[in-house]
């Protein structure tokens, strides 16, 4: 194994650094406390959503309902959590639990997650429209304060990224239960033989995804100040791309929480970079895709070299 193959975190870090350098070159104003915050604060909810997606990909599934789910969490946050905090908290808790149940059902009935989550995306979207038929609501004051806090030394976005990465790294990569969870994605049968209840582990993974999805919705409302039933629909694809960009793989068990956070930030930065380049919007989506393919190609080349050596 070469150095690069062993440390799969290197490539995401290098991608982000290169893109960041290019952005600073194009837009020197971004190279400040204020600039970094503007550049990255909207990446915080995306990073949380990416972590949620990572929990699902970790157990060898994929979640196509995440964008709608985050939108729903945002709608609940902007309405119930603001008007009646206890009720709001209960609803959010129920959302997390329903995700855990979903995970158990998918495993017990051996349903394909891709179909179940696609179907659930309409359910989440429908409930969101029911709660907030027209855009509105308000962010709870404490949440707004939290998302606009100005910590010393580094802007909120950077501090939040470090905290999210550290907490999830400890949970997934260092703790015993995290190792078992990754094992479910890698080889569910051997985990079951070792005496673990796979259905509970799947429920736990989905529940964690639900938790981070809810956090993403809350963070988004804290930034946007109000919600919209369609506010986060883009997050489904962004979160999948973020996981892969951050060194995760669809084969299950191979994920990197730190990489996922970096992947989310890289995607956000790529969009800003293209905008600074004054690229026509018709080309921007294509260019974003090209950046993604470029990074994945680089990864493939490094891995092949690694296996040759």
């Amino acid at each position: 194994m070469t150095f690069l193959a062993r440390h799969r975190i290197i490539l995401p870090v290098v991608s982000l650094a290169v893109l960041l350098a290019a952005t600073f070159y194009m837009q020197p104003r971004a190279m400040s406390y204020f600039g970094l915050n503007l550049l990255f604060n909207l990446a915080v909810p995306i990073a949380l959503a990416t972590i949620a997606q990572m929990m699902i990909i970790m157990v060898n599934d994929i979640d196509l309902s995440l964008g709608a789910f985050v939108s729903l969490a945002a709608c609940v946050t902007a309405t119930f959590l603001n008007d009646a905090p206890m009720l709001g908290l209960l609803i959010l808790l129920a959302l997390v639990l329903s995700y855990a149940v979903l995970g158990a059902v998918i495993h017990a009935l051996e349903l394909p997650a891709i179909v179940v989550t696609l179907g659930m995306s309409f359910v989440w979207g429908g409930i969101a429209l029911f709660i907030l038929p027209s855009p509105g609501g308000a962010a709870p004051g404490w949440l707004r304060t939290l998302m606009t806090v100005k910590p010393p030394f580094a802007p909120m976005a950077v501090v939040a990224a470090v905290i999210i990465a550290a907490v999830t790294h400890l949970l997934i990569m260092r703790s015993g239960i995290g190792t078992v969870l990754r094992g479910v994605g890698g080889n569910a049968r051997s985990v079951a033989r070792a005496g673990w209840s796979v259905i509970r582990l799947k429920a736990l993974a989905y529940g964690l995804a639900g938790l981070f999805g809810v956090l993403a919705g809350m963070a988004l409302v804290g930034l946007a100040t109000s919600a919209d039933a369609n506010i986060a629909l883009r997050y489904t694809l962004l979160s999948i791309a973020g996981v892969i960009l951050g060194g995760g793989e669809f084969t299950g068990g191979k994920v990197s929480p730190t990489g996922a956070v970096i992947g989310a930030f890289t995607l956000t930065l790529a969009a800003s970079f293209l905008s600074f380049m004054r690229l026509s919007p018709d080309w921007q989506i294509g260019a974003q895709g090209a950046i993604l393919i470029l990074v994945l190609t680089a990864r493939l080349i490094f891995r092949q070299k690694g296996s040759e050596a």
Partner: protein
Amino acid sequence: MTLSKMLLSAAGLALSAGLAQAESHMSETADKRIALSNNYAGNSWRQAMLQTWQEIGAQAVADGIVAAADAYTTSENQPTEQAAQIQNLILQGYDAIVLNAASPTALNGAVKEACDAGVIVVSFDGIVTEPCAWRIAVDFAAMGREEVDYLASRLPDGGNLLEIRGLAGVFVDDEISKGIHEGVEVHDQFKIVGSVHGDWAQDVSQKAVAGILPSLPDVVGVVTQGGDGYGAAQAFKAAGRDTPLIVLGNRQDELQWWADQRDATGYETLSLSIAPGVASLALWVAQQILAGEEVPKDLTVPFLKITQDNLDDALATTSEGSVANVTYSLEDAQQVISDAK
């Protein structure tokens, strides 16, 4: 020095001071940069809007009134994309952002960031509710009332009306319809005998009107929302009925039909809608705010009205498949601002 001379010179002084002020309002913004943040470019109205912005913006830059007037459109029509775009525009150091918003509320956080960074935000068409931004809104209810007022002036005896509505559940549809019903309450010689949804599209309207016509008594007038007048006329023709007085909505096919009817039978009506050129109004309002002018936060856009007299001019300047447009000048913006004060 006589009294009259003194007065004259005082007036002259005042005049030159006024001129100097007007001049300074031009040059004060010479180094200011304005950006357009747009969330969607996929229909003829938005295309016309962007084109107007390009033309007026390029002219303003050439005249040295502003340093830049750049247009940015998000790659997807999503509030999260546009929020990021607004934050990028702040970073790029624009002095003002003119905004056609994807959501009235979901961009408030980004708009607040802009305000806090000292950037002027002017929203139009798709407006935002954040109090620190300016809003150039459209009084759609007034548009509905005006249609009925016009019918009352043409048909003092009243009669039955057919209402064609827009896309169900959209704010604009509710507002125009509300205005129409308010108008009918005032002019109670009219009665709305039927109402269909035409989705602002000629083909949908034609089908909907053709479906309801057999059940209707004589109809003297059709109140519409734009994009539906031509389809309604075709449906009446196919049913073998007399063409009623149809209020039109500035689309090229409607105007063309109107001109043909006028030449053939002397048909007379009114056409009104919102001009995509409202983007140029927003540009000038932003320039005025940058120049230090006191501007109320809520402004109202005038409609673009086409009457029998200026039909030919409007038709000549509207390309096929497009919408009649008008560009607003600095003076128009100043007029709108002083009206709102």
